[in-house]
C-alpha cells in the first residue's frame, strides 16, 4: 500500500486524503470546543452583564474563569487532541500494512 502512495496513484491519493481529512476534522472539533468555551467568554460577559459582577467563592467570576479555570480547559483539549490524532495515525498505518 505504501507503494501506492509513492506512485501517487488514485488509491494512494485517496489514502492520504482520508488521513488529512480525519486529522482536519479532529482539529476542527477541538477548535470549535475552544471557541465555544474560552472564545465565548467575552460575548457572554457582554450579553449577560450579571456574569461580569457575579462572585464565586469570594472571587469575581471573570477573574476565576480567566485567571484559573481556563487553563485546565486548554490542557484537557490538548490531551483530547493528542489522543485522537495518534489514533488516526495508527489507523492509517494499519491500513498501509494490510496485505
Amino acid at each position, binding site marked *: 500500500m505504501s507503494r501506492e502512495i509513492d506512485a501517487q496513484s488514485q488509491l494512494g491519493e485517496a489514502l492520504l486524503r482520508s488521513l488529512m481529512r480525519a486529522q482536519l476534522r479532529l482539529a476542527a472539533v477541538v*477548535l470549535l470546543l475552544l471557541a465555544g468555551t474560552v472564545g465565548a467568554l*467575552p460575548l457572554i460577559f457582554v450579553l449577560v452583564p450579571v456574569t461580569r459582577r457575579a462572585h464565586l467563592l469570594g472571587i*469575581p467570576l471573570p*477573574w476565576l474563569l480567566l*485567571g484559573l479555570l*481556563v487553563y485546565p480547559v486548554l*490542557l484537557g483539549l490538548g490531551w483530547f487532541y493528542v489522543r485522537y490524532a495518534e489514533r488516526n495515525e495508527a489507523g492509517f498505518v494499519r491500513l*498501509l500494512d494490510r496485505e
Partner: protein
Amino acid sequence: MVHTEVGLIAVVAVCLLTLAIGVFGVRVSRTTSDFYVASRSVGPVVNASAIGGEYLSAASFLGAAGLILSQGADALWYSVGWTAGYLVLLVLVAAPLRRSGAYTLSDFAELRLESRAARKVSSVIVVLIGVLYLLPQFQGAGLTLHTLVGAPGWAGSVLVAAVVLVIVVSGGMRSITVTQAFQYWLKLTALVLPLAVLLVHWRHAGGAGAPQLHVADWVEPMQGRYATYLVYSLMVATFLGTMGLPHVVARFYTNIDGRAARRTTIGVLGLLSVFYLLPTVYGVLGRIYSFRLVRSGHTDAVVLELPSDMLHGFGADLLTGLLGAGAFAAFLSTSSGLAVSVAGVLSQDVLRGRSDRVRDFRLATALVVGATLVLLVASTGVPVARAVELAFAVAASTFCPLLLLGIWWRGLTAPGAISGLVAGGTLSTAAVIAALAGYHAPGIAGPLLAQPAAWTAPVGFAVMVGVSLVTAGRRPPGVMRTMVRLHTPEHLDVDRGSFDPERPTARPAEPTAHRGAQRRPATM
C-alpha cells in the same frame, strides 16, 4: 529604592551563569547545523522546558502583571492568549511542521511552495517579527536595571544585547537548548518564592483589600466602548500568532518526530498554565500595595517594586534581587532564542554566497542585535506586553495563513502565498508602527489600528486563497509528495521528497526524509 548591591549581584550572577552554561557547558557546536538546532538529541522534558523558557519573555514576566495592575480583568486575556496559542499550534501545525524538516519558516515556504521568491519574502518577515519581538525584551532589561540599581535606561539593554551576542556567537543553538530549559525553572522559582513570602505577609497583615480593588471598570471585564472588538482582536493575534513566531518554529525541529512534537507541546501547555497563574496574583497585590505605579504610569515595574512596597529591610532586598534575576533570565532566554532564529534566516538568505557560513551567522547575529538597539532608541515606551503582542499580530497576519493553508490545502500557490504575506504583513506592520510611535487615530480607526489582527489576519487569508485560485495552474508540481511528508508518521517507509534544509552544506548522502535507524522494510 532598595539597596543596590543585592540586585546588582543577582543580575550579574544570572548573566555569568547563563554565559557559563552557554559558552563552556556544551562544546559541540562544530558544524553549522549545531548552530541552528541541537541536532535533535534533546529529550521531550528538556525540550518542553526549553520551549517554555524561551517563550516566557519580558512580556510574561513583567508585562502581564503590569497590564493587570493598570487595566484589570481585560488584561487577563494576554496570559490566556499566550497559552491558548500553543493549543492552536498543537492542533493545526505541530506534527506537520516537525515532519516538514524545516529549520525556519523560510525553509517551510521553500519546501511547500517550491519557490525561492516565497523563501525570500518569508525571510524578510522573519527578520521583521524577530526585531519587533526583541525590542520589548531590551526595553524590559533597561527598566529592570533601572529599578534595581538606578542605572540609566540604556545600560540594561546594552548588557542583555552583549550577553546574547556572546552566547549566540560562541555556542549557537545547542548551548541555548540547555540554557533555555534551565531558564524556565529559574523564572518559575523567581516568581513563586517571592510570591509565597508576600502572600504570607499579606495574610498576617489581615488579608486586607483596598478601595481601588473594587473599582468597577477595573474588576469587571469588557470595559470601554470598543472592548468587544479589542478583546476579540487580541484573541486572534495571540491564538493565531504563536505558530508564526520564528523562535517557536526553530524549537520544534529539536523534537525527534511529529509525535514527540505533539507530546512536547502538551508539556508546554502544562508549564505555561502553571506559570501564568502568577502574574495575576502579582497584579492584584500590586493594586493593593503599589497603586502609585498606576498614577506614575510605570506599571511594568510592579513585579520588581512589590517586595519593597510590602516589606522592609534585607528581606525585601533579597526578594527584589531574586525577581530581578528571573527578569534577566527572561530577557536573556527569549532574546538569545530569537537572535539565533533570525540570524539563521538572515545569514542563509541575505548574506549567503560567501565562503564561511559560520562567520555569516555571527555577522547576522550582530546585525540583528544592533538593529534592535537602534530601533529601541527611536521608539516610544509602549508597555512591554503590548509591544510583544503587536509582534503576534504581524505573525497572525502572515505566517499563520501561510502555515495553515500550506499544510492543509493543496491549492496554495507561490504567487498566492507571496501576495498574502505581503498584504497581511504590510497592513499589520503599518498598524504596529503607528502604535509603537504612539499615534492614536480618531474614531473607529483608533481600535482598528491599536489591535489590527482581527482584520489584517483575514485579509492575509483572503488574499492567499484568492490569488491561489486565480493562479491555480502554478501549483507546485511536488505538492502531493510534500503532503505525504507533512502528514504521514515518520516510521512509514514512503517517499517524502528530497528537500533538505542543510542542502547548502552539501550532504546529499543523508536525506532528512528517511532516518536510517528507524527505517523499516516496505510492506507489500
